[in-house]
């Protein structure tokens, strides 16, 4: 190639192509077959797609950093958002984008609130919510499943769990969508950053009085817990609590919403599996895990190398970026028999829909509980799931499997 020619990229290097966005399993299969640790010239980093390599990457937090405000991601992020003060201030406190010791400190404070045992006390409330929402879906020709069920259930659960008034849920959704555009690195950056800055300001203004109130009047909610927690003599600052409450509202509904929606699409494609679930509710737990494997809401997450090392035969250099694609790992034929088939009785099923290692999804037990209860109720009320949306469209992002809308006919 001469120096005057524009760089010619392999079509597989477009992480936001129509195929990558709307048919990810097919796209990732091509990458995995070509090279499970593939150098993507255009993204300027390694794209990791085999089960073993993705797991190894997630577990190696000693060498692979999550810090978005340092290393190669930091250079880009700082240059793009440094003039947006609210975004800078609050996003730089998101514990998901931190390494030890801040990340460890934060996990120590919140972990015990999210154990399977801790979230279990919330099950009756989730059951009640699921019943109430499902009642409104019965006897209709068409339901906007995305808005009416998949959004409403998780946003209500996470806001109640945190102690945020759920009346604000529709405002929260609007703010979240603007933040999602940044968090999930979608294109068209400048306009979205401006909107993200305004949304961050609104959501922070909304959270701050709640956090201040819990300082004086603690309740049995997660914000109170964060405000009053002390680990090794250190407490979180007011802005730390606000930032991470914002993160949890966001992380607690967007992902679960897409998991529920993706799950219903999977069952529409596999009516035999829906019948199987209807006939045997003891499959609820394995069905939930299978939906996380088959079409989980998080496609991949980025890391960067703090030092050079060898990784599955590749020489990773300091500051190299790695994209760990759990969506691809969960379809790896070396790990799963018939990986592209939905099998709600699949055992074992050690999928990595929630990631692995220190950053494993904090809300995993809560998400599981919500999906289990949703499937229990929906499968008993409806004999068949039919997708009415003519062409399912997903947001064009590297990180999220984010559906734009889903209309269903739920047959009684």
């Amino acid at each position, binding site marked *: 190639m001469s120096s005057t020619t524009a760089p010619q990229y392999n079509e597989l290097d477009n992480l936001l192509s129509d195929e990558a966005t709307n048919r990810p399993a097919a796209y990732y299969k091509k990458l995995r077959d070509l090279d499970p640790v593939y150098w993507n010239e255009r993204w300027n980093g390694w794209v990791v797609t085999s089960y073993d390599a993705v*797991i190894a990457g997630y*577990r190696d*937090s000693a060498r692979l950093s999550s810090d978005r405000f340092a290393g190669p991601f930091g250079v880009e992020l700082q240059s793009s958002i440094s003039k947006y003060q609210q975004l800078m201030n609050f996003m730089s406190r998101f514990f998901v984008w931190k390494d030890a010791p801040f990340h*460890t400190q934060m*996990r*120590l404070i919140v*972990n*015990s609130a*999210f*154990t*399977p*045992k801790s979230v279990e006390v919330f099950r009756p409330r989730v059951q009640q919510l699921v019943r109430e929402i499902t009642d409104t879906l019965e006897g209709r020709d068409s339901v906007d499943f995305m808005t009416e069920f998949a959004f409403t259930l998780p946003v209500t659960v996470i806001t109640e769990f945190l102690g945020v008034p759920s009346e604000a849920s529709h405002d929260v959704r609007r703010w979240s969508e603007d933040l999602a555009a940044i968090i999930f690195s979608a294109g068209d950056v400048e306009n979205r950053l401006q909107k993200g800055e305004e949304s961050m300001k609104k959501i922070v203004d909304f959270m701050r009085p709640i956090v201040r109130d819990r300082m004086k009047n603690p309740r049995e909610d997660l914000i109170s817990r964060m405000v009053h927690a002390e680990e090794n003599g250190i407490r979180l600052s007011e802005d730390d609590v606000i930032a991470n409450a914002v993160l949890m509202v966001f992380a607690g509904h967007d992902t679960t919403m897409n998991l529920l929606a993706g799950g219903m699409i999977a069952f529409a494609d596999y009516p035999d599996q829906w019948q199987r679930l209807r006939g045997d509710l003891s499959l609820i737990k394995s069905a939930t895990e299978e939906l996380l494997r088959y079409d989980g809401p998080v496609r991949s997450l980025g890391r960067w190398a703090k030092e050079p090392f060898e990784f599955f035969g590749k020489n990773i250099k300091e500051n190299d970026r790695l994209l760990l694609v759990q969506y691809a790992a969960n379809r790896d034929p070396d790990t799963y028999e018939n990986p592209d088939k939905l099998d709600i009785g699949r055992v074992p099923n*050690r999928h990595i829909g*929630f990631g*692995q*290692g*220190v950053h*494993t*999804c*904090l809300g*995993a*037990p809560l998400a599981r509980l919500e999906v289990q209860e949703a499937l229990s109720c929906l499968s008993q009320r409806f004999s068949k799931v039919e997708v009415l949306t003519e062409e399912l469209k997903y947001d064009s992002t590297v990180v999220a499997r984010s559906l734009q809308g889903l209309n269903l006919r739920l047959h009684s």
Partner: protein
Amino acid sequence: MGGAENSKISIEVSHDLCAGVAMCIQMAPGAFSLDDLGQSVFQPDSERTMKEIQQAADSCPMGAITIVESE
């Protein structure tokens, strides 16, 4: 919760539940390791405190680690 030297406390990892997430290994280094199947195994001879082991149990998204106090 007493110290790790308390002989009446045992740590159990359920292999029905463990998904090899490896949170415990990060929260209490040395107290847990992964076996050939990628599942966590408690290492009784480690020098971790009960507080760290409790933190590892709390961090497990599968709820696979239980701290059992026997009479």
